[in-house]
């Protein structure tokens, strides 16, 4: 379990992380979302004691990470694929890390096999592709068989097979009762693996919610109705609490009324319905809706930027 309380990091007058408080529970995958520059990596580094917080606390399994006598067994992390000396082989890198806490060489071989690097394990890391570096980072995260796994953008640079492998790995780790905390700036990726979401923007908390809860709060569900008797239908469904938006001739988008309700009313009034579709916003849309005010580097269309 990870507990973060009022965590703040300032660099000069820039506030990278601004009073974050949240808990990451064991047994599920928790997604950590936010646009680029939102403070995700900084938060993760503070949890692991790599960056010193300006204020606030972060604990792993009940105490600050650095107070654990067996840190690699408490939490394993993929922070960025570059946290490796490029002149060393993957095997020696893992062997050196393992030695700090008496992890046997057999475990080093085991994690190399798990991430599929056995063919290149004796080669210098400098020649690794982004994806291979990422796999090495995951191997070092798993080295101590930790209760908490922290992964910063694990799918970066991986091919589709690798992305699928990471997804399954994260679910397996969570189903074994571990705490899995994974950052991403892609909502769609999180939708496939995470059960719980922590969304931040500009260092501040935006949402701490389940995935389904997130979609509900982010954007309302709407119903698309098509009918040849548009006017009659319009009168039928207009009322307090409902918004009817005319999209096209004979086509409305209705919010505030269920599809069942609309269908029943139309049937009762004898109005034919050609289409009745529940429109759920995609996760990506929901995410963008929520974080639109917190995007650090906003892009604009040419011509719109005047």
């Amino acid at each position, binding site marked *: *379990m990870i507990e973060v309380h009022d965590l703040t990091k300032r660099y000069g007058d820039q506030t990278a992380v601004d009073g974050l408080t949240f*808990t990451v*529970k*064991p*047994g599920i995958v928790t997604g950590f979302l936010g646009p680029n520059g939102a403070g995700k990596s900084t938060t993760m*580094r503070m949890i*692991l*004691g*790599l*960056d*010193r917080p300006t204020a606030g606390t972060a604990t792993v*399994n*009940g105490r600050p*990470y*650095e107070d*654990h*006598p*067996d*840190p*690699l*067994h408490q939490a394993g*992390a993929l*922070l*960025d694929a*570059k*946290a*490796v*000396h*490029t*002149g*060393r*082989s993957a095997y*020696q*890198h893992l*062997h*050196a*890390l393992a*030695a*700090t*806490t*008496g*992890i*046997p060489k057999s*475990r080093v071989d085991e994690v190399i096999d798990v991430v599929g690097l056995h063919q290149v394990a004796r080669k210098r890391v400098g020649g690794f592709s982004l994806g291979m570096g990422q796999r090495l980072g995951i191997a*070092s995260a798993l080295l*101590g*068989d930790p*209760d908490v796994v922290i992964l910063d953008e694990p799918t970066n640079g991986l091919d589709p097979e690798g992305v699928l492998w990471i997804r399954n790995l994260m679910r397996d780790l969570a189903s*074994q*009762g*571990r*705490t899995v905390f994974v950052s991403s700036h892609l909502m769609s990726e999180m939708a496939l693996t995470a059960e719980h979401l922590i969304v931040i923007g500009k260092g501040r908390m935006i949402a701490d919610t389940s995935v389904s809860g997130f979609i509900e709060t982010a954007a309302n569900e709407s119903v698309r109705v098509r009918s040849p008797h548009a006017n009659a239908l319009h009168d039928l469904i207009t009322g307090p609490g409902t918004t009817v938006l005319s999209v096209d001739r004979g086509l409305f988008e209705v919010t505030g009324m269920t599809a069942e309700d609309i269908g029943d009313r139309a049937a009762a009034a004898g109005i034919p319905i050609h289409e009745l579709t529940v429109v759920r916003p995609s996760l990506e849309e929901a995410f963008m809706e929520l974080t639109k005010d917190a995007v650090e580097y906003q892009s604009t269309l040419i011509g719109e930027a005047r």
Partner: protein
Amino acid sequence: MTTATVAAAPRTIRPRKRVNQARVIKSEWIKFWSLRSTVITMLVAVLLLVGFGLLASSMFGDGSDPGGPPGSEPTDVVGASLTGTNFAMLAFGTLGVLLMAGEYSTGMIRSSVAAVPKRLPVLWAKIAVFTAVVFTVALAGAAIVFTAGQAMIGDGGASWSDPGVARAVIGTAVVLTGSGLLGIGLGALMRSTPGAITTLFGVMFLLSGIAALLIPDSWSDVVQYLPSNAAGAFTAVAQGDNDLAPWAGLSVFLGYVVALIGAAAWQLKRSDV
């Protein structure tokens, strides 16, 4: 969400062992020997120490310039065989810088600190491994080049039992190890390989000459306290008029090493990696 749930995680590694200084030293030992650049730099250092020593010894007394940096022309037989010390100092200093600054430039420091979040054991272990390896290698190199050098000089060559000789040879290994430790300290403070190497070279080689030029005569006592001069006082068989006494020289030199390592430790403990 209770601790019982956390404990339910399968643990294939049993028992879970703690991090201690001995294990971190083992880790640093693996790191030291698994980098090609480390091993090559060390070999170069030994070659410089032995090579220049033999060259100077072979030319000793025939009036030719052995090619050392200005001011280092040997005036005694022991000094001749240890001419390479200055060059080896650069190489061992570079080795120290590479060992520490390399962690920062490659990002390895984040893996190292995640494994040992108390941080300081990593620095102590690096120093322990470096001191053990470099002192052994440097002492062997100094002993070999002294023995071979004196044999080449033949008549008039010094022997181990002559006064000050053992101190000069062992002192050479001490000073070479010390320069490497200065490199480790600078590497940790500056976090940049080129920056730390440049600083180390400047302090060990240029500072003494510049100080001699710029400092007024009444202040000239200051020069003997510079790291390179203090180190030289310890490794010379006979000290010049402006040198510290040998053991005072050693104390001053080690004082610089301790101060720099102390600053490095303080910086490592408090800053972000």
